[in-house]
């Protein structure tokens, strides 16, 4: 392990001879190689009598030496703790600054509100903290630090699994807990009885000439290592989830269906190694959706319950199953979790163009801008109308009520729906190929048609001026928005977390302790029994009581053995020959 590095050229006459070293080692040797806690007090320099060697200057490190030094710094606990702290600190911007992965709209708003600061923050990846390179550097370094420390210690623990306790020190009275008393038993018997008691208490024993060393509490190191390995596994699980998992969003109108492919997903955030071919090929149809709301009291209009009746299949051609999707009761299909995270309305429009042909007939999802009445805004684009492309932008009110000349929605259920649209004609800008959001109208090349937006009830239509056509509001449907997540590291992370907790508890509750027993013949013929106890890392206390209890048990067992021995063993001087026993029935003697 360690040893003084002897520079080349030093003469070795100061080192003890091999035989001397063996003798010195028998006197006292380090408790166990590699664990640096102070053990028995009689530790001696591992190199024996080197103190008189000629002093050497500081050794110069080469590249290998510096690398080794760097590795030792990295795998030290101090570095690991600093990195853990940095990990927590680095997560703070992820909570304070809007994140792209969670709320891209908020990020856009931040850009609008802080036009000079936002690009600087983006440069340091502060809008996607958990995908940032510096965040990855922190947890990768933490990973390396943990692995570099834990794995060698694991090998050492496995190697020392059957290691015996150290030899009993010569002078037990120097141990923190020591007791000495006399016994009538012979030294060997006293030690043997003590060993039986300790073995009964599941101590690991090592016996020698007139002494016994007992040790217990190896589970503490096991718990310690379990905690650190579980922490490593937790990091790895989170990493696996991020690399092989994905998150996606999809808005689904009642009656529509979609398949889990990138073209059908509104938002798709794959992990690093996820390709479109890795997506589980399930398909979901939304049959019915019902939302119930509170209809009276102060919380009027708050949603009570969402029920979405789904039909799904795990692959094209597989049997179709039903599921009732509710909030916090996700559909789990093929390892992928599908949650319902929102809902809204999709008014249906039929647009007839100037040539009399139906060029649009669909339910258009409108996005809620107000949660009390679910007032929703949306856009209808009709790029194939003749003579001009048409665009409509407007508002859908589920329960429209006239308040002071303006219409507003007072309740989220569609009790009296109205839709009010502004009409545009011209060039929607779609033919140039630039992708557009389906929720935004680019009015740069559109002219507004001179028709006053009036609220339409279901079934009503409005005739567009200049022979541009007709728009009919034929009804409405509801839509739900689904969050699709696949995280293969979730279950391993849970198991690792539980294991880490178990390891921590084990390492706190189990104490490593040693008991030494020596018995030798005292000056007056009686046996002097020395008991010594040592607890390493006794943070929880309690070893003193245990030591006292064990002492009492050992002493009691020795007394009982002495009494039992004196009642069956012959008195000194009395040496009956086999023929000298009184015969049965012989009443002489007694």
């Amino acid at each position, binding site marked *: 392990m*360690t040893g003084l590095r002897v520079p080349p050229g030093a003469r070795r006459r100061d080192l003890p001879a091999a035989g001397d070293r063996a003798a010195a080692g028998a006197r006292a040797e380090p408790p166990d190689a590699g664990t*640096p806690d102070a053990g028995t007090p009689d530790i001696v320099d591992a190199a024996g009598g080197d103190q008189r060697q000629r002093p050497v200057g500081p050794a110069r490190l080469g590249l290998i030496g510096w690398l080794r030094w760097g590795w030792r710094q990295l795998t030290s606990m101090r570095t690991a703790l600093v990195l853990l702290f940095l990990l927590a600190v680095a997560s703070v911007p992820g909570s304070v600054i809007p994140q792209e992965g969670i709320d891209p*709209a908020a990020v856009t708003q931040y*850009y609008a509100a802080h036009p000079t600061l936002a690009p600087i923050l*983006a440069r340091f*990846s502060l809008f996607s903290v958990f995908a940032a390179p510096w965040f990855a550097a922190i947890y990768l370094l933490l990973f390396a630090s943990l692995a570099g420390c834990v794995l060698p210690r694991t090998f050492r623990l496995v190697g020392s699994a059957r290691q015996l306790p150290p030899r009993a020190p010569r002078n037990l009275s120097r141990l923190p807990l020591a007791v000495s008393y006399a016994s009538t038993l012979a030294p060997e018997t006293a030690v043997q009885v003590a060993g039986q008691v300790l073995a009964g208490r599941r101590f690991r024993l090592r016996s020698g000439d007139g002494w016994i060393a007992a040790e217990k509490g190896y589970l503490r190191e096991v718990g310690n290592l379990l905690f650190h390995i579980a922490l490593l596994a937790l990091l790895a699980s989170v990493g696996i989830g991020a690399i092989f998992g994905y998150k996606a969003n999809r808005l689904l109108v009642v009656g529509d269906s979609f398949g889990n492919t990138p073209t059908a997903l509104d938002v798709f955030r794959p992990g690093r190694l996820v390709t479109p071919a890795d997506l589980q090929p399930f398909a979901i*149809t939304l049959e019915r959706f019902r939302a119930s709301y509170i209809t009276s009291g102060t919380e009027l209009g708050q949603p009570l319950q969402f029920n979405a009746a789904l039909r799904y299949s795990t692959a094209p051609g597989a049997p179709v199953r039903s599921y009732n999707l509710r909030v916090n009761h996700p559909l789990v299909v093929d390892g992928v979790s599908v949650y319902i995270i929102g809902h809204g309305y999709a008014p249906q429009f039929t647009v007839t163009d100037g040539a009399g042909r139906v060029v649009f007939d669909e339910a258009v999802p409108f996005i809620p801008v107000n949660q009390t009445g679910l007032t929703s805004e949306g856009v209808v684009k009709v*790029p*194939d109308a003749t003579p001009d492309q048409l665009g409509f932008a407007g508002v859908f009110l589920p329960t429209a009520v006239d308040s002071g000349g303006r219409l507003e929605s007072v309740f989220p259920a569609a009790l009296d729906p109205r839709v009010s649209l502004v009409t545009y004609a011209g060039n929607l800008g779609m033919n140039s190929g630039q992708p557009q959001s389906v929720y935004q109208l680019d009015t740069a090349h559109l002219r507004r048609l001179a028709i006053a937006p009036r609220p339409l009830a279901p079934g009503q239509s409005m005739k567009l001026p200049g022979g541009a056509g007709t728009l009919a509001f034929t009804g409405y449907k509801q839509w739900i928005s689904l969050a699709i997540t696949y995280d293969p590291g979730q279950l391993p992370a849970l198991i690792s977390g539980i294991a880490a907790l178990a390891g921590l508890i084990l390492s706190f509750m189990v104490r490593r302790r040693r008991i030494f027993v020596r018995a030798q013949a005292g000056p007056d013929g009686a046996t002097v029994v020395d008991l010594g106890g040592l607890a390493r890392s006794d943070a929880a206390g309690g070893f003193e009581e245990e030591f006292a209890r064990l002492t009492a048990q050992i002493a009691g067992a020795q007394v009982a053995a002495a009494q039992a021995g004196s009642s069956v063993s012959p008195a000194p001087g009395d040496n009956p020959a086999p023929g000298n026993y009184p015969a049965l029935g012989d009443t002489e003697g007694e």
Partner: protein
Amino acid sequence: MHRMPRLGRPAALASPRRGALTALLAVLVSLAAAGCEGGAIAADTPASSGQSFVSGSYGATFYQPGSRPQAPAVTGTTLAGRPLSLRSYRGHIVVLNFWASWCAPCREEAPALAALARHFQSAGVRFIGVDIQDNVASAEAFVRTFGIGYPSLNDPGDQIALAFRAAVPAAIPSTLVIDGSGRVAARIIDGVTYQGLKALITQVAAKSI
């Protein structure tokens, strides 16, 4: 895990300097890692792109004759309501184009596709469209606008796209070129150009002999 001082460590470094060097090392490594990708991430913000939706990464992939994935059974109903199956096109090179009427890049490539369909008609190359996430009225109006002469399958539930496990049409528009034996010979993600697709079809036709 506290280590006792070990013999052999450089004696020159005192404890505060050691701590400072550790911190410097951590900072340097982090900065080096941060310098790699900051630019790419900054370029991808929604404010710079103006929207948040799924856009595939552009690319044209040509599969060599020995390693072409088998196209799945593509069946369905056309926009006109008639049944259509890819199997009935065996022996012809088929260009399968995924599109939708609301998709702006699909509108940009539509004239090229219509023209190429007419150009290759006599050579036996057939074009089939797959209209996804769309309503029939808008799709038919799209077909009328661009004078598309080939049929399009109506696939509102993505069953056809889901069936492709290899050569996945990962964005729209996507175009797959399927050779005469039903294997995918080429895939283009994102819009096609007249010249580009023409060259690709010619290449597939030449290598399929």
